[in-house]
């Protein structure tokens, strides 16, 4: 059983994040981290493999990322949590990729891995907390030509079938699909394990395999800024709200607020 979990290194959401003059997210600010929602993906992959092994099977979890130098941190965190293998696709031509460029590279990496043995399941987080488009899972499933089971709050494997429970706005669904398949998990799917000391030490011994676009047979013109289908024209920090009112309730706050809402025709 080979499970690939896609992880992303993103600017820390607690830090000052910005878009540079080239219209791209500033990614070398130093305050980067494994996308929090991908921790749930790694946890899901590890738990599924553990259940498989408990049932007498064998396999591995492969942490995969695409990104600049710093992105290695994302797969290293995966190793520390317990992933067996780490792959980092690193290539200058990838810079400035939109979701389609990123998905193209990930798909090529997964197909590259599949050359040495079937990849049964791809697991991703539901979104990356920088771009937050949630487009990657569906795009990747499309390119891999596998069933997609997205926004899973629960995932289980039953033989060669994957089963998920999804909690949408007002609807709960249970879906199944034959492997190979792609699953994205929400932050409700599990509590990601903290790397323990043993895991961190073991991770140090595991290498991170670095691959280039040439290794994957990806045409650079189809990814990166060259292949991007959108372009940021301008970007700026949202201006601070003006004429703000801050008060401590002296017994009249409710009434003052009511007057404000009526005056501003907000109700």
């Amino acid at each position: 059983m080979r499970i690939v979990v896609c992880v992303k290194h993103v600017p820390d959401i607690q830090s000052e994040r910005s878009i540079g003059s080239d219209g791209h997210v500033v990614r070398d600010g130093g305050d980067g981290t494994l996308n929090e929602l991908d921790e749930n993906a790694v946890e899901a992959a590890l738990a599924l493999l553990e259940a498989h092994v408990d049932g007498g099977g064998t396999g591995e979890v492969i942490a995969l990322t695409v990104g600049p130098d710093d992105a290695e941190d994302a797969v290293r965190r995966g190793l520390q949590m317990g992933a067996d293998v780490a792959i980092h696709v690193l290539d200058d031509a990838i810079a400035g990729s939109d979701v389609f460029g990123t998905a193209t590279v990930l798909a090529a990496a997964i197909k590259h891995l599949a050359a040495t043995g079937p990849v049964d399941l791809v697991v991703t987080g539901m979104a990356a907390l920088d771009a937050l488009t949630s487009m990657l899972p569906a795009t990747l499933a499309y390119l891999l030509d596998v069933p997609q089971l997205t926004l899973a709050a629960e995932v289980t494997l039953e033989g060669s079938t994957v089963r998920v429970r999804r909690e949408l706005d007002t609807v709960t669904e249970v879906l199944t699909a034959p492997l190979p398949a792609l699953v994205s998990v929400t932050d409700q799917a599990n509590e990601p394990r903290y790397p323990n000391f043993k895991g961190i030490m073991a991770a140090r011994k595991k290498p991170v395999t670095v691959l280039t676009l040439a290794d994957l047979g990806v045409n650079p013109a189809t990814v990166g800024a060259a292949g991007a289908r959108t372009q940021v024209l301008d970007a700026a920090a949202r201006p601070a709200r003006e004429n703000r009112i801050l008060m401590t309730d002296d017994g009249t706050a409710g009434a003052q607020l009511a007057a404000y809402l009526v005056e501003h025709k907000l109700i």
Partner: protein
Amino acid sequence: MTSSLSSSALVLLDHHEGHLRPPVLELLTAARAFGIPVHGIWFGDGLEGAVPALGLAGVEVVYRVRAGAQGGVRADLRSTPVAADVLAALVAEKRPAVVLLASTFDNKEIAARVGAATGAGVVVDAGALAVEHGQFVAEKSAFAGTWLARCAITTPLAIIAVKANSVHAEDAAVATTPDVVDVAPAVSDRVSPVTLVERSERPTSGRPELGEAEVVIAGGRGTNGDFSVIEELADLLGAGVGATRVATDEGWIDRAAQIGQTGVTVAPRLYIGAGVSGAVHHRGGMQSAGTIVAVNSDPEAPIFEIADFGIVGDLFTVLPELTAELHSLTHAEGMK
């Protein structure tokens, strides 16, 4: 304009029980503003009841896609890959310049897959739209709503998923009589293998959908599980009721009410946070609100950094007072 043959705008007509979802009227208004014919695509049954509204919105053609063996699509149309496959096939045939969808989780998947299938550029969670130098430009926010960017789509076909409350919906200057065209594009085998084992509707609140509501009141840790004063205010204002992740984690309210980066993103005209601290996760889901009101007993709560009207106080005192005062003010004005 762009180089496509028919240069129309194609809008995904989300509907519920035969009625167009309110954000769709916004999409149709935005589509008309591009100055090109507006077409729609409707999945499933119930179109007859919505035709008058579509006419008022200036739609010229509606492509209807129905499931079923007789000339319909043989797959579950609610599955996003199936819907995307159908939409991509229609796009390939009709060649619109732009496809507009409401920015829901499902529609963002559809947009992504249609983009992958057609090579089109995609922007999701878009706000205001424009056309500049023949390209569609969408405004969107980034980094938990703290940054605003304008993104141009550089491909001949643009696919844009638009947030609710981004555009003020209006009737067309001239109403139309939409042509209904039944279409049944072949759905490729690749999209079939997911089996829906079970689907159950959870009880709804009867309140406006959070993503669409013009007024949203959210409760956080400070409510300590008691949403009664929030519910009363929401009753008066016809507001949606939302919550922070803490409140939903505690089980105080259904997870569907969670406003935040992994939940619903709201951009109402008015947002009122009661007992909400304003952590990044939550802020990212509401920072685009027109006016932000916050009530919290903690003066250090981060939400006060972005509130237009902030009250340090007890929500169990302030909200009832607000409700009572609004009640008497609106009654004083007579029938509304």
